C-alpha cells in the first residue's frame, strides 16, 4: 500500500499535467495541435531556463530573487554590444562584437552577477533573500542606466535566429532549453557536485562536517543561476528583436512557482530538475488553455496563485515531518 502511495506522489505533477491537458483538449479544439504544442514549449523555454538555476539554488535552501533583473541587464548588454559595440573616443578605439562575442560577454556578466550574489551570501552571511533582493534592484537600475530607459532594437537575422529559428523541425529555444535540462539532470543525479547540493540543502551542518566545501558549492550555484538568467535573456531578446529595459519583471516569481509546483521543497534538499520542468509545463499549459478559452489574463494570475498554493499544500501533506 505504501509503495502505491509513494509512486502516486512521485508522479503527482505528471498526473495533474495529463489531467489538465485532457480537460483542455475537450474544452477547446485549438489546444491539441502541433502549433499550439510548439507555442507552449517556446513560451515556457525562458522560464525553464531560469528555473533550472532556481532549482539548484532552492535545493541548497537558498533563493534567487534577482534572476529577472539579471536577465534584463545581460540581455541589454548583449544587444547593446552587438548593435553598437564599445566606442572609446579619446583613444579612437571601436570594438565591435560578433553574435558569438556579444553572447559570450552576456553569459560572463550573468556569471559575475551570480558570483557577486554568492559572495554576499557566503562571505558576509547576507541571507539569500536579502542579497538577491538587493541585486534585483541593482541590476534593474543598471539596466535603466545602460539602455537610457529605451529599448535596443534591430538586431538582425543572425542574432534573432536563436529565438525565432527552427532546426530539424524544432524551435531553437526548445533545443537550447532541452540541452540545458539534460545537462542539469545529469549533474544533479550523477555527479559529486549534484550530490553535494542535495546534502547542503538536506543538512548543511552535517554536510560541512563531512568535508563538503559549502561556500564553493554555493558560489557555483548562484553563478549558474546568473548564467542561466543570461541565457534566458538572450532567448527573449532574440525573439522580440529588442532588449527592453523592463524585461523580465516578475520572472523570478514565475520561476519560483515552477520550482515549487514541481515538488522542490523551499526548505532544501528535496526536489528535481524534471519536477521543475513539469511545474513549468503546468503553468504553460494552464496559460495556453486560459488564452484559448478567452479568459482574461488577470484570471490567469489568480489561477496561477491558486495552483501554487495547491501544489505546496499537497507537498506538505506528503511530507508532514519537514521543517
Amino acid at each position, binding site marked *: 500500500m505504501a509503495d502505491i502511495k509513494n509512486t502516486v506522489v512521485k508522479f503527482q505533477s505528471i498526473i495533474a499535467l495529463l489531467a489538465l491537458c485532457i480537460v483542455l483538449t475537450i474544452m477547446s479544439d485549438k489546444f491539441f495541435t502541433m502549433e499550439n504544442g510548439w507555442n507552449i514549449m517556446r513560451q515556457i523555454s525562458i522560464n525553464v531556463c531560469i528555473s533550472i538555476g532556481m532549482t539548484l539554488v532552492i535545493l541548497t535552501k537558498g533563493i534567487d530573487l534577482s534572476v529577472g533583473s539579471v536577465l534584463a541587464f545581460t540581455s541589454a548588454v548583449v544587444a547593446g554590444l552587438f548593435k553598437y559595440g564599445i566606442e572609446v573616443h579619446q583613444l579612437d578605439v571601436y570594438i565591435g562584437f560578433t553574435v558569438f562575442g556579444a553572447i559570450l560577454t552576456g553569459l560572463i556578466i550573468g556569471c559575475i552577477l551570480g558570483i557577486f550574489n554568492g559572495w554576499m551570501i557566503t562571505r558576509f552571511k547576507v541571507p539569500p533573500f536579502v542579497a538577491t533582493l538587493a541585486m534585483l534592484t541593482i541590476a534593474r537600475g543598471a539596466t535603466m542606466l545602460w539602455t537610457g530607459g529605451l529599448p535596443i532594437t534591430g538586431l538582425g537575422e543572425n542574432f534573432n535566429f536563436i529565438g525565432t529559428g527552427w532546426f530539424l523541425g524544432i524551435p531553437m529555444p526548445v533545443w537550447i532549453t532541452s540541452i540545458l535540462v539534460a545537462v542539469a539532470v*545529469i549533474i544533479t*543525479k*550523477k*555527479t*559529486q557536485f*549534484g*550530490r*553535494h547540493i*542535495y*546534502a547542503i540543502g*538536506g*543538512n548543511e*551542518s*552535517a*554536510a*560541512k*562536517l*563531512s*568535508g*563538503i*566545501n559549502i561556500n564553493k558549492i554555493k558560489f557555483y550555484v548562484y553563478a549558474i543561476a546568473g548564467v542561466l538568467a543570461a541565457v534566458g535573456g538572450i532567448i527573449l531578446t532574440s525573439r522580440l528583436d529588442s532588449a527592453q529595459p523592463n524585461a523580465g519583471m516578475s520572472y523570478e516569481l514565475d520561476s519560483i512557482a515552477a520550482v515549487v509546483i514541481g515538488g522542490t521543497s523551499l526548505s532544501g*534538499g*528535496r526536489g528535481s530538475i524534471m519536477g521543475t520542468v513539469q511545474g513549468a509545463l503546468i503553468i504553460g499549459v494552464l496559460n495556453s488553455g486560459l488564452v484559448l478559452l478567452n479568459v482574461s489574463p488577470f484570471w490567469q494570475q489568480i489561477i496561477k496563485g491558486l495552483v501554487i498554493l495547491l501544489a505546496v499544500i499537497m507537498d506538505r501533506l506528503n511530507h508532514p*515531518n519537514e521543517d
Partner: protein
Amino acid sequence: MENQQNFILRAVNVTKKFGSVTALEDVNLDVHVGKVNVIVGENGAGKSTLMKILSGVYPEYEGKLLLNNEEVTFSNPKDAMQKGIAIIHQELNLIPYLNITENIFLGREIHNSFGFLDSEEMNRRAKEQLNRLNCNLNPKTLISDLRVGEQQLVEIAKAILEDAKVVIMDEPTSAISDTEVESLFKIIDSLKKQNVAILYISHKLDELFKIADRFIGLRDGKIVGSIENAKDAKKDDLIKLMVGRDIKGFYEKETVPFGEEVLRVENISLPKIDHKSSFIIKDINFSVRKGEVLGVFGLMGAGRTELLETLFGLHPTLMTGNIFIENKPVKINSVMDAIKNGMGLVPEDRKADGLVLQMDISKNVSMASVKNVIKNFFLNSTLEDSLSVKYIDSLKIKASSEKQLSGNLSGGNQQKVVLAKWLATTPKVLFLDEPTRGIDVNAKNEIYHVINSLAKQGLGIIVVSSELPEIMAISDRILTLSNSKITGEFTQAEANEEDIMKAAIK
C-alpha cells in the same frame, strides 16, 4: 505492602496505536505519591509515548487515566498542566531571545486590569519559583545568556509553577554537569517532601540508583514488572527488568597492542571570540598511539566539544598550536584538510550534525568519501550500495536495506551509519563526541565493541564523554578537561571515579 491510596495517577489498560504500529499495549501503571517512580526501558519501548499521553500531548488513546481516583481526560498539554501534571522535556523548550520570566509564563501570561501584561507580578512570581530551586538568577536574564544547566533549571521552574501534583522528568540530566545534577536531586527531595509524585526517565543507570524509589519496566510497549524497593535492587536486576535477559559481561575491554604515535597535539589553544585574553581551551598537549583509546572526561563548559572541533579544522583563524599526524606536522585549516590528513569526527548530535536524514543509508555512508564511488566521472550506484552494504554487515546496522532513509532508523543504528561514513574514509584518527548519547543499553554495548575493534585495526581513537562509567570502561588512558585546561591523566590502572571526578572539577 503498598497502600492502594498511595498512587495519585493511575493508567488503566492504556493502549496507543499509530496506524498499524502498537506503541503501548494494555499499560497499567501507578505513580506513587512522594516517590521517584522510574520508568526503565530500551529505546523504542514506549516511554516517550506513555509520557505524552500522561501529559496531554496525545489526547486520543484506549483505556483511561485516573487522577486522585477519579477518571480524567486531558484535551491538550495546557489542560494537563492545569490539572496538576507537569512535564520537563528532554529537549529544552525555551525561547532563547526571551527572558526567564517570559519563558516561565509563556502561554499563561498574567494580565493587569487594563488587559496589558503585568510584568511586575510575573517577575515577582518567577523569582519565587527560582528561589524554590535554590537558584539566584535574575529572572530578567535572557535564556541565550544562560548555560545549559541553568536553562534546564528554568525548564524545571516552568514545570513546578502551577503546584503540580505529578512532575514528569524526561532525561532531565542529559545536558547538565554533575554538580547541577546534585542540585536537581535536592529539588526532587524537597518535592517529595511536599508530596509531589515524580515520574523519572533516564538512561544513566548509576544516576537512577541514587534517585529511584521504585522501578517500572517497559518493554515493547508493555509493562513487564516493577521493583518496589529500588534501594535494595542490584544493577543486574535492573538490566534484566529493562532488557529481559542478562547482559553477559557488561562490556569488557579487550587489550590491544599499541603501535606508533599517530596523533600529537602541542599547545592547542582557542580563545573566546569576544575576549581574546580568555580561552575556551588553553595549552592542550597530548598524544595518541595507533590502537589506543584515549578518553577525555569533563563537565559542561570544560571545552571538550570545542577541543575536537578545533582539531578537526572548524576554527582555523582563531586557533593556535601544532598538530602532528604520524609525527609529521600538518596544517588543518578546514574540515577538508582534516579529512585529507586522516581524521574523522563523529559529532555529538547525530541528527543535527551527523546525518542528512532525508537521504538513505547509502548516500550518508558515502558522504565524506564521494570520490571513491565515482566511475567514469559519474556517481556509481553499484559502488555506493556495495560500500554501505559492507558496513551494514560489519557494524550490524538494523535496517530493511541500504536504501532505507536514515531518518527512520533508531538512535543506535543512526550512530552506526555515522560511524560507517567515517570508516569509509579509512581514517588514521577517529574523534568520537558523546558516542552513545541517547542510545539504549544494548546498542551502547555494540558501539563499545565497534570502538574496540577499530582500535584493533590500528586506529587512534579519542572519545569525549560525560558518562564516567563509560569512559572508564572503554579507555586505555583518561584525560580530564576542566575549565579549558587538561587537569589530569590516568592510566587504566590508576583510574577510579573519585580521583577522576576531583580532577574534572578543579
